[in-house]
């Protein structure tokens, strides 16, 4: 599964893209976020507080209950500030 990070999430993690192989127990975006925390201190610093994060599945905003499947592209980022 392809995971993308942006803005300060990317900075804290140290890179913007990674490919992960999920254990069978990780089936939703919220579970994925928790599972990613242990990959590095940067991941923990970036992803610990779900309140300040947004998540998108296959280019569409979703919530932390969204089911995920192999082949999905999941992105984690802060609230947007463009325009």
């Amino acid at each position, binding site marked *: 599964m392809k995971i993308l990070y*942006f803005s*300060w999430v990317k900075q804290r993690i140290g890179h913007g893209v990674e490919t992960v192989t999920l254990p069978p127990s990780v089936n939703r975006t919220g579970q994925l976020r928790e599972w990613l925390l242990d990959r590095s201190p940067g991941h923990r610093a970036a992803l610990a507080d779900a309140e300040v994060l947004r998540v*998108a599945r296959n*280019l569409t905003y979703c919530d932390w209950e969204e089911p995920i499947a192999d082949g999905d592209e999941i992105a984690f980022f*802060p609230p947007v*500030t463009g*325009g």
Partner: protein
Amino acid sequence: MVRIQQEDFDPGHELALLSQIGPNVGGIASFVGLVRDMAGGRPVTALTLDHYHEMSVKMLENIEAEARARWPLLGVTLIHRYGRLSPGERIVFVGTAAAHRQAALDSCSFLIDWLKTDAPFWKEETGPAGRQWVAPRKEDEERRKRWRQ
């Protein structure tokens, strides 16, 4: 029409294209966003825009479709830049063409309000004190809500 690009754009040219859509265009509204040299009382020497390209394209296309569903628009142009910009540089262009001014003006406000809260761009300000990611403004959320989905 949606464009996400690093290079600058020419607002006069974009307005001209909208006015040439057809002889039924009676009004063209536009908004241009620029990099300011101050933000929250702090000097800004550069603004760097991170973005999620494929999702930005998709979200702006969705926003355009939503505006076209709500107003009888003859043309819509959405341009958003990314990368490192200096104060005074253009960031974003929203242009709408319609037979009557109300549709053009209201949809232009709608588009920039939605773009602000929905399009995945992130601004980082550089100043004498270092770099800092811009915090989302509550006001933007509230303006977005006025348009109730």
